[in-house]
């Protein structure tokens, strides 16, 4: 019963996450940006734009210019999350195969990353509560999102440091889901909380502010080449006006 519920939950969550995100990306892709609105100084070549985007996505360059506290907490959270997610590959992949061998190497880093992630989220939550400017702009969902991520992190770390789960069985469960050969899921509290919240996160991702992840790549102020005089830029609907 439990296995069936979670199996279905994860199929639904995965479909919603992948399908919803794909639809949203297709939508962003298909809406034209009729005017050149790069925030300048901007790169004058496509290669330069790739570099700018890399700095924005990997180093949070603009946020660094803006506010060092938010940058530190944001970086701790995102870098921590990235490592934790990579560490989780071991539950889905055959880590004896050559392609996935790196998953073994990052395991220790992934452990520390869990703490970094929680520290970052905690810092962001405290700021949201104590800084009047940020409290003013916060909706209930903004707090809940942080609390949910913290609960995901905390429940995950509990399984490592407090109440161990049969991790081999968990891996068999997920490998089973991937190959449509369901295996039983252990009925441990922290595990079920962890998995429920992760599924919830995947489901709300395409309908929430988490869209900032694909959004940043489509932001015209960051992804446009500064060459309006050299190259005429015109959107299809704007070209219609010329007829």
């Amino acid at each position: 019963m439990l296995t069936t519920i979670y199996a279905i939950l994860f199929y639904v969550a995965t479909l919603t996450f992948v399908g919803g995100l794909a639809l949203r990306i297709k939508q962003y892709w298909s809406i034209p940006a009729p005017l050149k609105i790069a925030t300048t100084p901007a790169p004058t070549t496509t290669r330069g734009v790739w570099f700018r985007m890399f700095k924005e996505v990997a180093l949070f360059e603009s946020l660094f210019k803006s506010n060092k506290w938010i940058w530190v907490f944001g970086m701790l959270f995102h870098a921590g999350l990235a490592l934790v997610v990579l560490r989780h590959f071991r539950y889905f992949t055959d880590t004896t195969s050559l392609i996935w061998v790196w998953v073994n190497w990052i395991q220790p880093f992934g452990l520390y990353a869990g703490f970094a992630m929680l520290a970052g989220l905690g810092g962001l939550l405290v700021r949201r509560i104590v800084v009047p400017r940020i409290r003013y702009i916060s909706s209930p969902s903004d707090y809940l999102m942080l609390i949910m991520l913290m609960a995901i992190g905390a429940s995950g770390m509990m399984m490592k440091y407090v109440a161990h789960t049969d991790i081999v069985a968990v891996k068999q469960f997920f490998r089973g889901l991937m190959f449509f050969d369901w295996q039983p899921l252990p009925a441990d509290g922290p595990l079920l909380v962890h998995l429920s919240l992760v599924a919830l996160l995947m489901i709300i991702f395409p309908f929430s502010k988490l869209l900032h992840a694909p959004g940043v790549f489509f932001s015209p102020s960051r992804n446009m080449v500064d060459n309006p005089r050299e190259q005429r830029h015109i959107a299809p609907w704007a070209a219609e006006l010329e007829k």
Partner: protein
Amino acid sequence: MSEQVTNAPTVEDYLNPLARPELQPDSMKELHSFEASPEHQDKLGFPGELVDNWHDVAIDKMGDLLTKYRGFRVYMDSCVKCGACTDKCHYFMGTGDPKNMPVARQDLLRSVYRRYFTTGGKYFPKLVGARDLTEDVLDEWYNYFHQCSQCRRCSVYCPYGIDTAEVSMAAREIMDTIGKGQKYCNEIIGKVFDVGNNLGFPTPALEATLESFEEDLEDETGLEIKMPLDKKGADILLVTPSADFVAEPHIDGLMGYAKVFHAAGANWTLSSTASEAANFGMFIGSYENMRKVSMRIREAALELGVKRIIFGECGHAWRVAYAFLNTLAGPFDFLDPRYPVPQHICEYTWDLIEKGELKFDKSRNDKYRLTYHDSCNVARATRMGDTSGGQFEIPRNILKATCNHFYDMAEDTIKEATVCCGGGGGLLTDDLMDLRVKGSSPRMTALQNVQKEHGVTHMAAICAICKSQFAKVMPKFGFEMDNILSVHQMVSNAILLEGAKDPDDDDDDDDDWVPPTPPPRPPRGSAA
């Protein structure tokens, strides 16, 4: 130099230009600039007054914009409310009203977007901060989207580049579409359609004005320096803000352009139908109106048969010219392909300086101890020259080539971090004076700091709105209204023209003329 050390101001003398204010919720709520009359609305193709089914029309228009502008859609979705922008807007710094924080300003529109266009907002409005579009919300839109100068400072600091300018343009377009336009912007666009420029300055008056300027130039230099109007077959069409014909210090800048053209032996002209560089179509976010205003320039260039187009000193105008003109009114394949279309007058002048074709006597500007205000839209939406950041270097290079005493203001208030003058984006109207003064305070504080530190007396700018705004608000901060200058005014003062009489010839004591000493450093803290 020792005097400088003993008089060196201490930390307490300086105020932080970017100080975060105490929150004063809704303190600017009532500020309501005049609404456009039916006559103003009509000329732009908008309904004369609020339409009966305004709610549905507004939502439909928002839906329409969401499919036409990728930026608008992405910006509506992407904000995570991190707070990075909250202390970056000069109007927030000046007023303390939290709805002047960029994210809160965007949220006025985003909350409605979420309610009508997102799953979360449709089913859980309270949870995600979504709300219905009501008359109160519409009033908030009108008041707070006319407290944004579309300066893009917030977009520099946003980790996703969310640009409140785009959001405020969308909001204004929605409001225009339901018949709730702003008088200042819409009346001016109507004048451009009727007469050719923002000031509604008719051709005969323009002719007479230019003639009188030519006489002034002849009195000053003894040379016949021309300001041709509608001259067919000229090589260069100069498109400049109409304020350059009527306001100070703008006129002195225009004189500077004329002298540069004269020195270069250029065959240039102004156009009576394109006697305006500014394009207020951008302020109201209306592609159609922006395009119509831009097309005048294309038509004038074709009519006069010019080879190049050069823009005078104007900030938002340079944005529309540099970044949008090719899109709106291009392609310009009928112009000389050796030159970018369009060029900025600063690019033109600096190019001549680099080639050694202009000569200056910098000491003629020794009475000025100068700083430079980066106009917001030039800084964050355009470029000059071939390299990224040329928009910061070229005007400064011109100033350094023409005067001896130049000092920049604090690094976090210039270049891409520049703080707006407080009057841009359709806010340069007397009914918003309270906001304009408050919004200029970060810039004015930064200026007071260099006044204390370096004895700076004057500030130069390359934007008609900045110049008008500063002339008006500077007296409220202990400066004179003529402490704001045009960059080409400095060029005009210092340029050495062949065959010109010495400007000091009228003086009796010109043989032992010495540059005036810089004004005494003000006592510590006097201007704070």
